[in-house]
């Protein structure tokens, strides 16, 4: 039996395969050898010239040849695909250092950040958030807070009046008076009241005719001044850092008795003395006190049965101290170069301590 034709075909195929460079010529080669009219298929036609005994062996050899060519073609095909992918990838390489498509994010106003932080702290202690009117009556802004018309302390607040009885609120305390009145002397109260307030001041680096305040009020049957101190100490540690301490200094507000100013140990110099705390180690941050019995009585509470504390602070001042903002007017100019500095999230860590 002559199989030299097969060997010759195989050799020819191998030579041709060497020259193949793309999948199209590979496909042509495949047709040339394995197609209906292909060279290998042609070998089968020789079968009829063989004896009956020789045919199975011949057939088997042809099949072996077909399979070997087929597998070489597949191999080549895979190699070509791999090369093509390689080339594509090489062409598709990006400069990953170019800027990404911009998705601008805006910035929260620093006052808003501070207010949210403070709100969240007191929400955690079970307080509600109450808001009131920015245009108030003289009664709620002053009289219901133990500041009758003849009270000398009214000198402390030069106010924007709209008429004899209507004015822009000078503090958030009228919210206290209204909430107390709504509860009709019966229920306990745990609220904080953030909002805008107005004083008849000329605007300069440290004064603004409009600013914000947060007032807190707690009324219940068994509230002591030590609870005020404890609450504010927790507040100072939570908002200004766990090492902060507070100290109380006697003061005067018509709507509280006793009244105190609350200082926190300086968060910048940790109490050593610096420009933020004017070298005292302490920063005045809050006014507070036990709710004056007149305020309770006017709202219908029995001041023997109920007692409570109130405190107030200025988010503008807190923001200025915390970030070192040198001019309060920046807070109301809305310069993007200013506001956009307050985008990133903040946490309890030191700046860049883990970078």
């Amino acid at each position, binding site marked *: 039996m002559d199989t030299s034709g097969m060997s010759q075909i195989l050799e020819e195929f191998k030579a041709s395969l060497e020259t193949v460079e793309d999948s199209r010529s590979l496909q042509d080669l495949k047709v040339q050898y394995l197609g209906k009219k292909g060279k290998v298929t042609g070998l089968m036609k020789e079968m009829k010239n063989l004896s009956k005994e020789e045919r199975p062996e011949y057939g088997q050899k042809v099949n072996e040849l077909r399979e070997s060519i087929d597998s070489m073609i597949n191999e080549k095909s895979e190699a070509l695909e791999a090369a093509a992918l390689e080339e594509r990838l090489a062409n598709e390489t990006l400069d990953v250092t170019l800027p990404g498509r911009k998705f601008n994010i805006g910035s929260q106003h620093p006052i808003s950040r501070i207010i949210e932080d403070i709100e969240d702290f007191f*929400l955690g202690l079970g307080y*509600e958030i109450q808001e009131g009117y920015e245009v*108030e009556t003289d009664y709620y802004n002053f009289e219901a807070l133990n500041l009758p018309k003849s009270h000398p302390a009214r000198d402390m607040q030069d106010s924007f*009046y709209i008429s004899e009885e209507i004015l822009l609120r000078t503090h958030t305390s009228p919210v206290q008076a209204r909430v107390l009145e709504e509860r009709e002397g019966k229920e306990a109260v745990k609220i904080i009241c953030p909002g*805008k307030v107005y004083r008849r001041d000329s605007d300069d680096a440290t004064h603004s005719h409009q600013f914000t305040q947060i007032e807190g009020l707690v009324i219940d049957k*068994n509230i002591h001044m*030590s*609870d005020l101190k404890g609450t504010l100490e927790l507040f100072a540690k939570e908002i200004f850092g766990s090492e902060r301490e507070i100290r109380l*200094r006697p*003061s005067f507000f018509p709507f509280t008795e006793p009244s105190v100013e609350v200082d926190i140990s300086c968060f910048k110099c940790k109490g050593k003395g610096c420009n933020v705390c004017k070298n005292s180690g302490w920063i005045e941050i809050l006014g507070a006190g036990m709710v004056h019995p007149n305020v309770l009585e006017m709202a219908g509470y029995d001041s023997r049965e109920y007692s409570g504390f109130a405190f107030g602070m200025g988010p503008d001042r807190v923001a200025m101290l915390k970030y070192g903002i040198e001019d309060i007017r920046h807070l109301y100019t809305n310069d993007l170069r200013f506001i956009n500095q307050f985008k990133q999230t903040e946490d309890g860590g030191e700046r860049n301590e883990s970078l």
Partner: protein
Amino acid sequence: MRVSKEWLNDFIEIKTDINELSEKITRGGIEVDDIIDYTADIKKLVVGYVEEVSQHPNADKLNICRVNTGEEVKQIVCGAENVRADTYVIVCQVGGRLPGGIKIKKAKLRGEVSEGMICSLDEIGIPGEYVPKEYQDGIFIFQDEQEAGADALPAVYLDDQVMEFDLTPNRKDALSMIGAAYETKALFGGAVKRPDVGFVEVDDPVDVTVVNADSEAVPYYSLRVVKDVKIGPAPTWMQIRLIKAGIRPINNVVDISNYVLLEYGQPLHMFDYDQIGSSEIVTRFAEEGEKMTTLDDKERSLKSSDVVITNGKEPIALAGVMGGDFSEVTDETKNVVIESAAFNPVSIRKTSGRLNLRSEASSRFEKGVSHEFVLPALERAAYLLEKYAGGKVSSGYNADGELDTSGSVIKTSRDFINNRLGMTLETAEIEETLSKLGLETTVNEDELEINIPSRRDDLQIAEDITEEVARIYGYDALPTSLPRFENITPGKLTDEQSKLRIIRHQLEALGLSQSINYALTSKEKAAQFTDRTEGLKLLMPMSEDRAVLRNSLIPHLVDNVVYNNSRQQKDVQLFEVGRIFISKGQDTQPDEVEKLGGIITGQMNRTDWLGSHVPADFYAAKGILDSVFEKLGILDNINYIPVEGYPEMHPGRTAEIALGESRVGFVGELHPKYEKDHDLNQTVVFEVNLDELLDVKLGSIEYEVLPKYPSISRDIALVAGRDVPVSTLVDIIEGAAKKYLVDVYVFDVYDGEHIEDDKKSVAIRLTYLNKEETLTDEAVEDIHQPVLEALKVEGFVLRG
């Protein structure tokens, strides 16, 4: 109130340095705002004896002085006109220093050696406004003999520090040296010594009578008469103490009056006895429109709430505020009447406020004077006039009205104090603390009765006692605790509050920064972007720009863009959440409406190297708002309705926003003319009523099972008039489709070639879905054909 340590030491022995003194006083509740240290920046200041003064050979205005400075005699050139021989002066020696960083060196002045400097009061740190007239244009000259070479600071009573008290309104008791002394005693212990009053009355009874016509106006009025006074300068120590307290010395009589005011906090007035015009004093409320001329030569028109001191016929003083012109003490005065009184505090406050005449006296009268010091002050002034003005005190005093010097009693208990403070003080501790303040306590078991002297009539209720105990005991000793509430309640934001936070954070995530603007604006701006023409007006605005409450957030947001644009920032996107105020008249509270305002200009999400950005145009603003409405779950109920009529807005690029039937805001491009006037590029604004948006309650999300069957979509293209809003087409389609229509999506709008001039082509994709079974083409056609028909009926031409 300025408290000199050297002066305070007359009332109570001070054993601590100024820093500890002021620190403890501050912690005790009187804030020491500042310490004025007269020894700071001063070196080598001695008393000099001027032996000889001669004319400088080369300068008309200079003198050459031979000055004995103790160990040697120096030549000092001096330019002061009042320098003269045989006087004691203040000399800053060579090598010395003076306030303001001045160093004294040996010098040659026009050829003459000068070894040191003879000082004026200005030069040693006394503000010019307090320097007495006689020393104003020259050097200070001691009134009497001194020791040459001695340290000059103590000799001139300036080896001293002065505490500036920043007093809260309730602490009028510390508006005097004696009050400061009682406070010092409470904090440091010791005893308070009262000033001397040991004068001798002459045998000449007081001959001026007193009648208070209205005890409401003047509850108490007392006077003494001192005759034969010699007007001259007050002693140096008194002058310097006044200067340190911030009062300029005038002459001995006036100075004594001010000195006693500072000692007791009791303002006095000195009348010229011979100029009163009668021998009676009658006090009363003024008559409405009554005229008087005050000692500043101004004619005042009085009101019936003013209190006047009269001679029975006409006013001789405006009580507690200012004296009258003809009765004031002058250089010619021989005999004086001293007034010490208690006036109606509210009247004094009104009068001094109305006439803008606030003084040391009025500020004390308006807080109410301590009754226990009214007479001691009168006696003290008589004593000082006798001693330092050579006066003869007539015997006795005349007075009308009643003084309440007995004080009052406050009842409280140990339990009450401990409960309010959260402390566990023993009765004895409370009693001891109060006694430091000079408050005597009567103890009955745990009940306490506390006697309050009139100087502390600010103490009125048990809570005041609680405060006194706490502040003297010290707040550092107050324990810390957290409230034990009767009922524990959760702290949470209301629905509105939490939705507002979400809106804010979403707008920030979309690239808008939060602004906060003033609520006060100009009259002009209050009438922009609103149909209201007037805003609530302030009675006394500080400026025209801040005179009216805003009716819209937009005008100030426009200002913000203008501000940023002029600082090289052309891409500005801002929002604000704040109130606007709808006036219901000046005499009632307005409706306060919470608004969300926004402004966008320039480009958003710029990536220039890729050539991509989102233009800050109408559709960007609308998309931002839609995202908010989607988050609030109300997008399906929102409609945009074209609107004209806002003069500040582009008439063809503005829409009102409707939530259901209610108009809740507007969005649109600024009018090109408005933009030009404000030097703005294309700018889009929006404002919506947050109260109405947040009022919508939607409850929880309704989950829908995922569809099991595929949806089928059909695209249609139709030609419509250019003016027809696309929403009209969508409405027709939604109205005509009987069922299965789940989405209508406009994917192309074209007007140009192949389309008539007044038309546009709109391409819309309709998506159908049957949730129950697979939609067949036939079933879709059954629904879709009526939709096409409906569009045709309305006159729209479907394109191939």
